């Protein structure tokens, strides 16, 4: 029963005898699936499935993978421990301990810089917040695996040389 004042929108078409007899319709359905089957049998190579470990999908340049810390020419981190990224991080996964830098031109440096990759939501806000382009998520690494939770908490050294594969 439609509600009062509202037009009835769902109209059921009366099914013909052959449609309700069901067997003809089943045969039509079988023809459809059979067509798919035959097409895929004859053209196995055109299957859209990506054979993952061998083939990989191409991701765009803006794909956010695992983080890395950028270095200065001398190899020290570009980070100035301003805490912008850890402040903006919605998952609260970045922990920075700041320390005084020896060079008076540079105010501070991160004595320790750890990211808990299990808590990170890969939103990329840290990249955008960073005033000196020290943290980026452009490694393209998205297969991250380890056998214990502690290994997912990665430190400064790891992030500075983050060009390994997925294993931590």
């Amino acid at each position: 029963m439609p509600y009062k004042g509202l037009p009835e929108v769902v109209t059921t078409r009366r099914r013909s005898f052959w449609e309700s007899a069901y067997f003809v319709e089943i045969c039509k359905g079988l023809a459809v699936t059979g067509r798919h089957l035959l097409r895929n049998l004859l053209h196995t190579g055109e299957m859209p499935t990506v054979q993952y470990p061998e083939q990989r999908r191409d991701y765009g340049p803006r794909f956010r993978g695992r983080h890395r810390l950028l270095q200065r020419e001398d190899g020290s981190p570009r980070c100035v421990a301003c805490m912008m990224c850890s402040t903006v991080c919605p998952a609260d996964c970045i922990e920075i301990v700041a320390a005084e830098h020896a060079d008076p031109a540079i105010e501070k440096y991160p004595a320790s810089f750890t990211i808990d990759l299990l808590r990170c939501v890969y939103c990329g806000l840290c990249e955008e917040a960073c005033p000196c382009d020290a943290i980026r998520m452009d490694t393209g690494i998205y297969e991250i695996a380890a056998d214990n939770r502690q290994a997912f908490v990665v430190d400064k050294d790891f992030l500075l040389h983050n060009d390994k594969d997925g294993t931590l």
Partner: protein
Amino acid sequence: MVPLVLEAFAKIVFMFLLIMGFVPLLIWAERKGSAFIQDRTGPNRAAVLGIRLAGLVHPIADVLKLVFKEDVVPAQRHRFLYAFAPMLVMVVAMSTYAVIPFGDYLEIGGRRIPLVVADLKVGMLYILAIASLGTYGVALGGWASNSKYTFLGAMRSTASMISYEITMALSLLGLFMIFGTLQITQIVAGQGELIWGWLPRWGIVVQPVGFLLFIAAVYAETNRTPFDMTERDSEIVAGYHTEYSSLKFALFFMAEYAHMVVAAALIAALFFGGYQIPWLPRSLLEAHAGMLLTGSLAAGGGLSLVVAWLYFRRARRERGWYNDSREREPGFLGAVAALVGLGLLGSLTLAPWSVGAAGASIFVTVAQTGCFIAKVAFFAWLFIWVRWTVPSFRYDQVMRLGWQIMLPVGLLNLAATAVWLVIAHR
């Protein structure tokens, strides 16, 4: 006496191997076929030395996994029935096979061996009786697990069994009236005739409505979609085998496929002429056995060589795709196909065009059994095909279909058959 026992034993072993060989093939066909129907690739990873056979190695991996899995059992189960139910399902699935002929007869050394395990005079009733026992394994297994989901599966199974068994019997009664016998071998033999000289007198030709009813009832009895309400994932987890794991689950799983093979064999035997090759009766096959054998050997050999050539071409094309042992596969398969083809062609030198009487008999048996197996394979595949095409019925729809549509149609079909027989035989 001893040769009789040996014969029976050989036939039983043959039938057993036939079903058990079909089961992994069907599991593979289910996975691969469903994948192709849904534009996926399907299983293609498990490999033995890089040989994957398009996923055929997967059933082996599955079995190994199930064997080594922990057997988790519910604590408050009925101990005996819980363990007994999977066996019962398997036994019932296998025992229907005893009355299905897989060939006419084999004549060796003056002995005429009928190619059926047990040629019962009441074969059709035997099938119905065994099929009616099929519900016990499912119902008792579901009940003994002492879980709500399995219990619902068990209840649904008994309900559908009671409903569809009647239809099954009614659909077979028409066939029984037309062929005038309950003996499966005679029904199959009767289907070798031709109507008007060109139409095979198959069950589907003389009983089209009976065939539709039978195939629907059989789908309901084997719990396959669209009647899979005993194990519907979206409603009752996995139905009656929710609480089963490891080998007991494997038994249920295999029994489902064994049941499908049996049902396919029944459809083939009762409605599609069983082992009968259409338009090629036994006399014709025997008379031209040598010629036909030569022709089929040559054709088989040629075909194998073509397949081998295709594989070798593929091996060259795919070099460097994987950079591991899997690259050997097309080459290996091509080598096998080439060997088979050369073997078949080489056997032509043994003068197969002059086979003796025994050779002709063996050739006829092989050809008819092959035809039977091909029909069984097609109908087993039809089960899978339908499953991945048709959405399943709701529970009340199943019940209404069984009682309000199929039962009256079956009765009408029976009455019509009787009237037609009376008119035709006057």
